[in-house]
């Protein structure tokens, strides 16, 4: 189900979703915090994009901005040729109710109404959109539940009466019922055990294959993402620091933060056969102090390879075909890292 690699999207075709130069500021006045800075992201039909980064890196904010729950301060979000970030009033409501872009929220226990039955949760959006009678909605609900492998017998249960894995599938069914052309999933597997995690990821890969549905999966578990994603996008403190095909990025990352994320991922095989461990990639007291300037690279204060040039934020530059990274030393740090001590 997940073994085939999708054809690389023809770069000539326009992307389904184009996020360009998006800045997001949350809060007002002295509380205002810039959460996203200059984010550029294109999504093509039929690809699974893994969006990774640590807590507070802006992954969820980016997803919420794409679906229109947060308005960007700057930049454009263009979906299928229409700029959706600039829509106001009725046009905005029509776009949202069209169901083109759907977000599966983190933590289904909190995002699903505990008093509604599964059928009501999945059908609610369709009822609000209008144009369908009760029987048609019911059919669509059954169809959506079938797509996520939930039997119709669960229709009348409330979220408290089903397991965590089933709740996550209800969340996905709710999004699918709207007939989306783009699906965003915020940490769909972080609360699940390994078996359920793999089940959900396989389910998403299957939806991509059967519906040619592009899916953005937000996760901090790189290892399982590598099993199904075509592309990986790494966010660090509100900036994209690396974006490229999974197989290439994960075999030779060009940003030291991507490498640190990979080295930190636990493995049943242990760390023994890893080329780089966390100790190769963490700053130590022996490293020269990072450049101290307001415009320094976002990763400089954690980066053991920071030099004077890192006092300015590097732009995302193309390092290979369809592969970008934001690092001044993307060609050099790999060799420097392998010369550092393997143990503290």
């Amino acid at each position: 189900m997940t073994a085939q690699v999708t054809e690389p999207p023809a770069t000539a075709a326009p992307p389904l979703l184009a996020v360009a130069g998006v800045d997001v500021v949350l809060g007002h006045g002295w509380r205002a915090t810039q959460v996203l800075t200059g984010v550029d992201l294109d999504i093509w039909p039929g690809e699974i994009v893994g969006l990774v980064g640590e807590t507070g890196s802006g992954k969820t904010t980016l997803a919420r901005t794409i679906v229109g729950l947060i308005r960007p301060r700057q930049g454009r979000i263009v979906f299928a040729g229409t700029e959706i970030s600039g829509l106001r009033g009725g046009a905005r409501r029509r776009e949202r109710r069209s169901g083109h872009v759907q977000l599966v929220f983190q933590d289904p226990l909190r995002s699903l109404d505990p008093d509604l039955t599964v059928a009501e949760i999945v059908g609610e959006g369709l009822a609000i959109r209008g144009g369908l009678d009760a029987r048609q909605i019911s059919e669509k609900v059954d169809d959506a539940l079938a797509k996520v492998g939930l039997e119709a017998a669960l229709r009348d249960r409330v979220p408290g009466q089903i397991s965590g894995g089933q709740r996550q599938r209800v969340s996905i069914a709710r999004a699918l019922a709207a007939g989306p052309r783009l699906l965003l999933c915020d940490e769909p597997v972080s609360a699940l055990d390994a078996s359920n995690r793999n089940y959900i990821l396989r389910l998403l890969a299957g939806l991509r294959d059967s519906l040619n549905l592009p899916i953005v999966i937000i996760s901090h578990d790189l290892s399982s993402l590598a099993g199904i994603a075509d592309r990986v996008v790494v966010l660090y403190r509100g900036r994209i620091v690396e974006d490229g095909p999974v197989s290439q990025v994960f075999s030779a990352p060009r940003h030291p933060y991507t490498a640190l994320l990979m080295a930190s991922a636990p493995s049943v095989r242990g760390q023994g056969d890893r080329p780089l461990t966390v100790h190769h990639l963490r700053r130590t007291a022996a490293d020269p102090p990072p450049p101290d300037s307001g415009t320094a690279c976002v990763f400089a204060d954690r980066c053991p390879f920071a030099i004077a040039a890192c006092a300015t934020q590097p732009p995302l530059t193309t390092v290979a075909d369809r592969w970008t990274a934001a690092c001044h030393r993307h060609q050099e740090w790999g060799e420097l890292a392998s010369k550092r001590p393997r143990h503290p």
Partner: protein
Amino acid sequence: MTGKPPRDEVLGLADLHVTVHEGAATAVRGVSLSVAAGEIVGLVGESGSGKTLTCRAALGVLPPGCAVGQGTISFERQDVTDLSRRGWERLHGTGMGAVFQDPASYLNPNLTVGSQLAEVLRVKQRLPRREARRRGIDLLAAVGLHRPDWVFHQIPGELSGGMLQRVMIAIAISCEPRLLIADEATTALDVTIQAEIIELLRDLRDQRGLAVLFVSHDLAVIRELCDRVIVFYAGEIVESGPVGEIIERPRHPYTQALLRVASVGDFRRRELQVIPGQPPQVGAGITGCRFAGRCPAAIEACRSGPVSLVPLSHVHQARCVRATDPELTAVPVTTAAATAEAEAAELAAR
């Protein structure tokens, strides 16, 4: 790490049974385990397998409606099964410490983390205010927090999840307990922070000879940290042994299944495996092996009567009638045929 209870045993559970719903059902049955000083023992299993109840029984903090139905709990070779509430309170902090999944919910959001850390030292160790503050800052530094004197004066909302988990560990070890119980302590953290917390726990073991009981549903995390691993399924221990041996040569089909779904960490595209079926409900009347319904290698003998833990070596044991069957390990676990079979079984189970 030998079969007989070591002389420096810190925690010992013998034939522990925990009943739930006011005794209506037994959720943990016949669990025997021991943790020695300087040893990190991992408990692994799906949600609902009884890992957390076992920990809470060992800490003397079972939730309402749950009770130890049978068996004994010993701490440093003293029977503490029927300890009074006051007795447990004396043990908490000074004898055993605990860290849980969600650090933010165990700290008072309105008080500085320093005051909460110092409070433990003042109550348990009877330290004067100034001394408690000094020790608190030392502890925050010991758990790897930079600028500990700044952290001391922050409220929980001003610290990140990883910092809060370090504060929780600082509180747990503040009165120099001999045992630390960590229940899913790294599950909610980012991978980079998780790796740091794992290192911290290992350092604490090395420096203080702390015994650690580490609970996780992720075999990959267990592999990184633990010396021994105990696999739980439906309230029973199904396999236990040194972590390397369990990973290399798992003998119980459930352990083999857990390994198939665990993170390999090679970042390659692969067929993601699932364990078909659902674990039995608590209180389900099963006479034979509790995993038989989901087991690809189940035979008639599995369902005919209770299965006991079979010693495979002096450190390795498995609860499987086919544990010594050479064919069992030959079951093709990762081939396409097995996957197709599993999928068919799963469709049937739904």
